[in-house]
């Protein structure tokens, strides 16, 4: 079984981003960048499948600027076999990302695609579902458990009311939730080894994919700020404020 994982280069989850004063976006100059945490979970899951003998090859793909090679290298250091960078300087919308991934799935003959459920920058939560639709394959989104059995994959999903389990024919697309696994850290020898693993660089055009979009970001503004309130001295004072000032109880 061949597994493809999607890796997105995003701002580190613990960086507090600021909106640019001209309202065109957020300022990421010199911000620490990382693999999207959900994609890290995707890589870990793929590697566990390989270690368990269920997967033969794990390919890590990123669509993004040349610098996204760093995140691919990290995925290689964690145990992926090879990388693909689909280089683009423009920001692609999820549908375009899904079209690029579809072309790679078909080119490589992929049996299982594992993606993050959402990127922590754009928070779209779309790519996996779109890719599944384009490939006409089933989807197991927000997975907290995944098990390959007899040519199928059983996925337990985190849903609003609890959990749901579905059985999917392969090929399939799975997207990861936080509780699927705890990603390992790359060891130094593996980081060294990863430097020798191959990364192919392509363009969307090489894959014959049109990446235009009909969505325009008109402006990006900071959120309304909440001002810090007051400290109360005791539970009694708190209850009094909630009853008589805020009138919420």
């Amino acid at each position, binding site marked *: 079984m061949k597994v493809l994982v999607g890796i997105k280069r995003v*701002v580190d989850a613990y960086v507090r*981003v600021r*909106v640019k004063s001209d309202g065109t976006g*957020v300022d990421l100059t010199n911000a620490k960048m990382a693999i999207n945490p959900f994609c890290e979970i995707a890589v870990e899951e793929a590697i566990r499948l390989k270690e368990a003998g269920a997967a033969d090859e794990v390919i890590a793909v990123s669509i993004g600027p040349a610098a996204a090679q760093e995140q691919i290298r990290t995925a290689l250091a964690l145990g992926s076999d090879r990388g693909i960078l689909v280089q683009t300087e423009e920001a692609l919308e*999820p*549908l375009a990302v*899904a079209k690029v991934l579809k072309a790679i799935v078909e080119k490589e003959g992929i049996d299982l695609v594992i993606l993050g459920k959402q990127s*922590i920058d754009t*928070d*779209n*939560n779309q790519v*996996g*579902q*779109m890719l*599944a*639709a*384009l490939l006409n394959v*089933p*989807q197991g*989104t*927000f997975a907290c458990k995944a098990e390959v059995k007899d040519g199928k994959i059983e996925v337990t*999903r*985190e*849903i*609003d*009311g*609890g*959990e*749901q*389990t*579905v*059985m*999917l*024919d392969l090929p*399939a697309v799975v997207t990861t939730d*936080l*509780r699927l696994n705890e990603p390992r850290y790359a060891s130094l020898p593996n980081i060294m080894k990863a430097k020798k693993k191959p990364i192919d660089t392509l363009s969307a055009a090489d894959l014959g994919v049109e990446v235009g979009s*009909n*969505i*325009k*970001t*008109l*402006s*990006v503004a*900071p*959120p309304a700020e*909440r001002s*810090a*309130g*007051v*400290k*109360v001295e*005791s*539970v*009694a004072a*708190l*209850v009094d404020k*909630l009853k008589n000032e*805020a009138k*919420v109880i």
Partner: protein
Amino acid sequence: MSILVIAEHDNGSLKTATLNTVTAAAAIGGDVDILVAGYGCDAAAQEAAKAAGVGKVIVADNACYEHQLPEAVAPLVAEVGKGYTHILAAATTTGKNLMPRVAALLDVDQISDIIEVKGEDTFVRPIYAGNAMATVQTSDPIKVVTVRTTAFAEAAKDGSATVESNAHTVEQSKAQFVGEQLSKSERPELTAASVVISGGRGMQNGENFALLEKVADKLGAAIGASRAAVDAGFVPNDYQVGQTGKIVAPDLYIAVGISGAIQHLAGMKDSKVIVAINKDEEAPIFQVADYGLVADLFKALPELEEAL
């Protein structure tokens, strides 16, 4: 303009998230219809017909939609939705699972989690864990949108839409429903509750959540948690409030033993009144709290229960 709202329901009843979505549809303007896809879902359809301002409820009641798997429902929505300018659903796990699949079938982008309608083609949505608000415009012929329910009030239930059935079926066997483990609770649903009390890592273990439950009982509150509390196994997954969990905006949110990481704030900072109980006076949660109590939660919670 004509807008198709995808109903969220469990066949037997309509989820209120549908009513929030109807309000977002009304803000766009034009005719609003609701699609109810399920099996034995007449009761849900009758409830949908009462949503104010809705012209027509389309019911696709067939065994193939029983568990509302997106592999079956997305082709139906794409088929029915072709005749509309907008397709809207709530940004719940059901809507998030379904709508991108619909958008891809229609070869259009999808706009996630809108909090404001600026015009028929222009919407505001949070990005970067709510640290930035993007105003986006789409020229797609069909606009596929998910709606953050806490940003729109529930539509009234005094309407009387016509109900018509749709016989379209989708045969698929690639995805099979195996089972469901739903949390049972007598408490209000987390995203719709007017009071939410959440516990974090400071609770130390699952048993200690009983302290929160006693306060919740007095307030008629729903119980939530930080990711740290869920990861540690104190409470189930579906309690998680935050950027990557549930978004809540109750009248009163009480955070207990929660530090206030940006990912947690993203899920609750639109609450009307925020209370924080934390023993560390430097905890970032106090920067967004209207009322902060620096105290040991194991002392404060029993006192609070007593005082209510």
